[in-house]
């Protein structure tokens, strides 16, 4: 597959760049809004409870556990699925129903190469970048909400708490997890769009199936990573 991508790089690379733009850059405003909301939700709840039990020094730790390890990647995956994954199934299933797959095969072009490879690459790269932006946005907005709630916490202290709570494993697992989320969403949506001959009226069913299976696969993968965190 990689050799073929290189052999037709002037066709495939622009498609991959388009997919990265679609699954990354164009979603950035929405992700920043969600990041601000995520920071508010987590800090809003955490400050109220941590203040009562005198554990406000754990604010950074809670942000790392909740946002960096869990909600950040999972919310990014769900947003990517909603905004790009569904469009992916509809596009591919419609292309399949209208005979574009047969047309590609008749021209000696591998549909996996033309339709799937750019999407898998674009989604894996796109979701990784977006998750990083989402997490950074949530951490910053978290501090701002804490500041608004008059929590006696200096930025340096907050940053120190975050740094203390993070480990090398967090970065490694975050990279693997987000990449896998993107890969799973791309593969599942492409599979449902392309794998079987479809009629136009079956496109909506294929989309629903792809969304349901992507959500289940991402949640199961997330559960697997929780086990890995617990082991290490």
């Amino acid at each position: 597959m990689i050799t073929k991508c290189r052999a037709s790089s002037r066709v495939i690379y622009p498609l991959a760049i388009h997919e990265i733009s679609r699954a990354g850059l164009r979603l950035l405003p929405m992700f920043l809004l969600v990041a601000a909301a995520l920071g508010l939700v987590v800090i809003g709840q955490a400050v109220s409870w941590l203040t009562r039990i005198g554990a406000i020094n754990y604010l950074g730790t809670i942000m790392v556990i909740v946002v960096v390890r869990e909600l950040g990647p999972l919310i990014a995956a769900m947003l990517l699925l909603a905004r790009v994954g569904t469009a992916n199934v509809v596009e591919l299933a419609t292309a399949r129903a209208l005979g574009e797959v047969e047309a590609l095969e008749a021209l000696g072009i591998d549909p996996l190469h033309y339709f799937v490879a750019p999407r898998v690459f674009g989604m894996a790269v796109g979701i990784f970048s977006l998750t990083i932006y989402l997490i950074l946005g949530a951490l910053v907005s978290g501090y701002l909400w804490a500041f608004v709630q008059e929590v006696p916490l200096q930025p340096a202290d907050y940053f120190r708490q975050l740094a203390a709570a993070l480990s090398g494993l967090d970065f490694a697992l975050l990279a693997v997890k987000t990449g896998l989320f993107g890969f799973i969403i791309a593969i599942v949506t492409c599979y449902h769009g392309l794998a079987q001959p479809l009629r136009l009226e079956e496109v909506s069913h294929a989309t629903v199936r792809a969304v349901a299976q992507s959500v289940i696969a991402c949640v199961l993968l997330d559960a697997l990573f929780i086990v890995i965190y617990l082991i290490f």
Partner: protein
Amino acid sequence: MKAAASNPAVAGLALEMRGIAVAAMADPGTILVEGVDWSVAPGDFWVVGGQQGSGKTDFLLMTGGLTAPVNGAYHFFGNGMPMFEENRLGERLQLSMVFDEGKLFNRLTVSENVSLPLRYHRNLTVAGADAEVRPLLDLTGMESWADSTPGAMALAWRKRVGLARALMLKPRVLLLDNPLSGLDLRHRGWWLNFLGQLSRGHPWMEGRPTTLVVTTHDFRPWQGVGRQFAMLKDRRFVVLGSWQQVNAASDERVRELLAVEAGSN
């Protein structure tokens, strides 16, 4: 079904089928045509008729190597078909197909649709392929549509884009599924004239006669254009011969494809 092995004995024939059975692409369990024995020499111009639903499109998809035959042996210039292997792509590209209604890539412009096979197989940019695409667009009367998308075009023009795309790599054999369906007289005339030129040796093909196979549900427009006729009838592939033999046939099904009632000839 395994691909048939190469057979040097039939290497001189463009297409050679023995005992071929064809299943429906949408329902592989349904056999549409069986027992096909057919030889197509280079430069032949075959017209394959059949009523709607007789399996013409599925037969052509199998002939184009997009589906495997259920049974029998099929060779393309002596090489076993279908060819799905990557290392046989060069041979595979000698065969091209024009689909009914075009089957164009709706998100690409006309120019991008036509240039796609060239760009993909020769790794060219859009600008790099332009010098080769423009003459073909001119040739097919599509130059003013170059930047349009297929959704904005009428069927007649979409069909021409499909033809231009299939000709981009200058194949030796061209299969056309119902090329005249849904066309007005002016467009029909253009197609018949253009296919006649391809069959005799068009400058775009460097003067080499192109082997043509078209399907139709009406033989009449092909008089004087197609050289050999066959039809799909009761799940069989029946070779009818020349136009004179078709015109003289008394078979009711053949007369239907000539839009003539049996016995009125």
